[in-house]
């Protein structure tokens, strides 16, 4: 069966399950607008989806039902018991058709004209006399084929057994069997629905008195449908396991008991895998929710007579399954809206000087602990004047109020319930359902929605939804004597407050790399620090947690930073819900309760995140590009002071050499290593030979067969972190200090140490190549640059570095020429793609091979960079791959060109 239809069946049956209850509630409280709205939206969704799946019968029934519900909703028709019965029959009919659809893969044929006529009559204002209705419907009293009211039809035995025992369904099933092949019992207020194709097995219309149960069976995929609660409790258990594992590891590290270490390592491994596995059960790429869209857009374009191109980016952005399910419908709605309202017809577009084909763009990406989904079009934009007029007409705002509003505020009226700008009610969209439904659904999962629109240019909706993951990595900090957790995902970097903190009147700010960073004191914000503030004192000793919310950066001042811990987010008690500063609480490994800070709440409370303050494009936010790079770092100890770190990718091997192997040559230590002499460079001052029988820990750096060993005191750990190096340190041999695992750690400048060894040991041995190939490295991050340049240099290339695309192009203007260019993609100003296009567009470099260096190696990114002109695509930090790519592209270009 078509995936789309299977999806549709699963979703709709879930919706219908809730619908029965809602309808019964409606019968009791006929004037509850929320219930009516709920029912209306579901039927509306069914109708809309059917239209695109080509399920005409279903669409017609739903459309007629929606008409009646629409009148109930706007109050122009009173809800009566007969009316509810009629709607219930619509629901039953929908179920029936769906059952046939599930069984055969296509809509069962049948005649719905009677029920549609009845609905139309009610829509037209006739009173639905229940008895009359019963009499009228009595005509097609056909046989109800043997059906299992438990909602499953025996369709070639391919329906999977649902997991949950259907205890509740048992009575229904029993009564169903009793009724088998009989007309619906007279006691049922509604006559049973009818089917005229006996071939299609169809379930009996469940009488409203025993609702639901009809849901479990629908959906025929080869997968198990597991109750979310089961996953949820699995997740909790795994989370506890992770915490216990962490505690155990900590204990064993302190004990140094080797008998324990082995099994514990395995346990640790298995736990991690288990955690990953359980997480995976909940994560899905957002592309799954987009699968149906290309077809939807194609059908839409045909139906509306518009040319529409759909562009999807970031389809592999993963998010929690529950969130995904909740966002699926809103997205469909929005794409449909974009096609229907947003885009103009071809003629209109031509007139406006736009390409005939309109574009709908979908983009998903992670940002500051959230997933942002953009749905945009290049259509006509939101007509501010029309919205203004309509807002007045509908009494949503007075003219005065509107006069004081910005354009964007007025455009936001489209999120109000019942608001629609479509001039005509089409069958596609435009009943005022739409954006308010979208907004409700987005907010239900704790998200926000906003829009950007310019008349004549197009509209883009921005949905921001939280990544509700059960386990998150959090930074544990202390302020005012209390500990708090800050979700790591919003943390861009950690900076020692030091003397960089300045005050503008009372507002503390930090100058951070030419930017003025607003600061928020956590203890003052949480009113933990009631004592009169000795100005600047607390700030100076503490740390600044640089946090990014949307486009805004700000710093949270804390007193201490401990380490990062994996925490299980638990919601706060309802009586604390109004405290917006916390997103939850959790129990740490040591058993203490700790509050989880919500950076969004903090931003809101302090006005940092106020909209429009800093609306820059994401590509210009320098920090995002580098903060995303998580890399494995080897932590070690050498001499006094804190731990030191080196990117693990640069270290070839770790050795633990017996003292006897270390020899002295020219007063410098060397070892015989793999058939050659390897110089040992002690990283700490005052290094002495380890005592006889002792051992020496060595980090081996290996460049094309030449090795250098860095002698260290002790290898501590390997951690994976995003590296943010605090600048402004000039100590040779070190790139700077970063906070790693909550501790200030010096990051080793490998190039410098390589040179220490290279000057003495490598120089004479360097193979004399006739002419070294010239390579240009374009990379904005000084750190990566510092790593790439020596690595390529050691491999025999002559390397020039540029910090941005613009700088690289300046080199071109200066007449420089290179044999190959290696470039990062994400860079400020001119990014890699833009630079590649500029290079390919002409000029002296247009034939120079380009190699992209990036952490995104998914198909879409690769394709994009190929389109821009990159020949090859290498993941950052894979030195061998980069060298391989360089050599192969140099080989291909030099061979025919004869360089």
């Amino acid at each position, binding site marked *: 069966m078509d995936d789309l239809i299977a999806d549709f069946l699963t979703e709709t049956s879930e919706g219908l399950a809730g619908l029965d209850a809602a309808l019964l509630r409606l019968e009791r409280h006929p004037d509850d607008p929320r219930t009516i709205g709920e029912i209306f939206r579901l039927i509306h969704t069914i109708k809309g989806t059917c239209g695109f799946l080509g399920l005409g019968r279903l669409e017609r029934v739903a459309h007629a039902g929606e008409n009646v519900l629409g009148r109930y909703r706007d109050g122009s028709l009173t809800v009566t018991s007969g009316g509810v019965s009629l709607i219930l029959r619509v629901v039953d009919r929908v179920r029936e058709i769906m059952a046939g659809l599930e069984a055969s893969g296509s809509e069962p044929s049948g005649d719905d004209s009677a029920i549609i006529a009845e609905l139309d009559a009610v829509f037209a204002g006739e009173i639905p006399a229940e008895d009359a209705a019963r009499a009228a419907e009595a005509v097609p009293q056909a046989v109800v084929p043997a059906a299992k009211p438990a909602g499953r039809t025996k369709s070639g035995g391919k329906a999977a057994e649902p997991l949950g025992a259907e205890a509740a369904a048992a009575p229904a099933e029993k009564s169903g069997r009793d009724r088998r092949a009989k007309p619906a019992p007279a006691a049922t207020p509604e006559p049973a629905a009818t089917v005229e194709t006996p071939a299609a097995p169809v379930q009996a219309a469940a009488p409203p008195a025993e609702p639901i149960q009809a849901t479990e069976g629908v959906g025929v995929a080869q997968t198990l449908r597991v109750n979310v609660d089961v996953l949820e409790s699995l997740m909790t258990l795994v989370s*506890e396991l992770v915490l216990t594992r962490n505690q155990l590891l900590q204990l064993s590290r302190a004990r140094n008991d080797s008998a324990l270490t082995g099994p514990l390592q395995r346990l640790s491994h298995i736990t991690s895998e288990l955690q990953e596995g359980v997480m995976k059960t909940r994560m899905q790429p957002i592309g799954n929710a987009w699968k149906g869209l290309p077809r939807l857009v194609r059908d839409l374009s045909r139906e509306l007579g518009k040319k529409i191109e759909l562009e999807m980016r970031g389809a592999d952005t993963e998010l929690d399954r529950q969130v995904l399910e909740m966002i699926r419908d809103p997205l469909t709605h929005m794409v449909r809206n974009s096609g229907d309202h947003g885009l103009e017809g071809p003629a209109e577009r031509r007139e406006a000087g736009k390409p005939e084909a309109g574009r709908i763009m979908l983009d998903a990406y992670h940002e500051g602990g959230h997933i942002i989904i953009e749905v945009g079009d290049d259509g006509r934009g939101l007509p501010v004047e029309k919205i203004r007029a309509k807002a007045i007409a509908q009494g949503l705002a007075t003219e005065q109020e509107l006069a004081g509003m910005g354009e964007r505020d007025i455009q936001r009226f489209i999120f109000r319930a019942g608001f629609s700008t479509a001039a005509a009610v089409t069958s596609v969209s435009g009943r005022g359902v739409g954006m308010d439904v979208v907004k409700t659904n987005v907010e239900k999962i704790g998200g926000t929605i906003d829009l950007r629109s310019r008349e004549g240019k197009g509209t883009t909706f921005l949905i921001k939804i939280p990544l509700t993951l059960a386990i998150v990595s959090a930074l544990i900090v202390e302020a*005012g004597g*209390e500990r708090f957790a800050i979700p790591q995902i919003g943390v861009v970097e950690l900076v020692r407050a030091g003397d960089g903190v300045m005050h503008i009147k009372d507002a503390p700010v930090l100058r951070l790399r030419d930017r003025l960073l607003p600061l928020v004191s956590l203890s003052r914000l*949480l*009113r*933990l620090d009631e004592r009169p503030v000795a100005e600047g004192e607390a700030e100076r000793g503490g740390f600044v947690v640089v946090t990014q919310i949307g486009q805004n950066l700000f710093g949270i001042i804390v007193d201490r930073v401990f380490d990062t811990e994996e925490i299980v987010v*638990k919601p*706060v*008690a*309802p*009586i*604390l819900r*109004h*405290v917006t*500063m*916390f997103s939850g*609480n*959790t*129990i740490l490994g040591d*058993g*203490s*309760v*700790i*509050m989880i800070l919500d950076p969004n709440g903090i931003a809101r409370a302090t006005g940092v995140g106020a909209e429009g303050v800093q609306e820059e494009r994401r590509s210009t936010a320098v920090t995002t590009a580098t903060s995303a790079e998580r890399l494995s770092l080897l932590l070690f100890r050498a001499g006094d002071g804190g731990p030191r770190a080196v990117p693990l990718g640069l270290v070839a091997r770790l050795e633990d050499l017996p003292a006897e192997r270390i020899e002295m040559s020219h007063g410098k230590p060397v070892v015989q290593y793999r058939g050659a002499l390897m110089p040992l460079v002690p990283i700490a001052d005052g290094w002495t030979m380890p005592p006889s029988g002792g051992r020496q820990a060595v980090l081996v750096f290996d460049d094309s067969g030449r090795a250098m060993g860095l002698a260290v005191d002790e290898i501590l750990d390997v951690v994976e972190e995003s590296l943010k190096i605090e600048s402004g340190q000039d100590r040779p041999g070190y790139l700077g200090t970063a906070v790693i695992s909550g501790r200030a750690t010096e990051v080793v400048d490998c190039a410098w140490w390589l040179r220490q060894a290279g000057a003495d040991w490598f120089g004479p041995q360097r193979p004399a190549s006739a002419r070294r190939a010239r390579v240009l490295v374009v990379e904005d991050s000084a750190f990566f640059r510092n790593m790439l340049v020596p690595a390529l240099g050691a491999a025999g290339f002559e390397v020039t570095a540029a910090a941005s695309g613009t700088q690289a192009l300046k080199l071109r203007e200066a007449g420089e020429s290179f044999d190959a260019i290696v470039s990062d993609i994400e860079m400020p100003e001119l990014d890699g793609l833009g630079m590649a296009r500029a290079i390919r567009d002409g000029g002296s470099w247009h034939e120079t091979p380009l190699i992209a260096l990036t952490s995104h190696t998914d198909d879409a990114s690769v394709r994009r960079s190929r389109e821009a002109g990159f020949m090859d695509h290498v993941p950052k930090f894979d030195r061998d791959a980069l060298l391989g790519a360089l050599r192969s592209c140099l080989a291909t270009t030099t061979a025919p060109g004869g360089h």
Partner: protein
Amino acid sequence: MEAALAPRRTTVPAAAETSVLTLTVAGQLCGVPVLGVRDILGSQAITPIPLAPAEVAGGLNLRGRIVTAVDLRRRLGLPAREAGGPLPMSVVVEGGGELYALLADSVGDVLALPEAGLASNPPTLDPLWREVCAGVHQDVPDSSGAAGARLLIMLDVERILDIG
């Protein structure tokens, strides 16, 4: 825990009796229906929650569940516990599907009290107390078993938890 909470004096309360867990808050004898009590804990490490209502003492860890602690002294407008004095005990109750710990100075017995002995709140009672009290039990036996010695304020747990 459940077994320990069974009424001591009468094994099964008669129809006209309610089982009440007694607790003391600043010298005042209070009671909560024992059926609503999920757990009784000794003094616990409580993490204060900044910006929370004053009545909320913080959060504590009950076997992996986070329980919000409500200080009955503050809730009843009584003077704060002296520093250095005995630490409060927690009576864990359920409210709206969540667990809450009521902090009391001490937790006493489970008594079976005749419903007939429950008088409604005197109109002169402090308005704050009137709101959270479900009545006053009169013939409360003291520890020696002599009846009629003390008055016991029945706390309405739902109202107690209606904070903020």
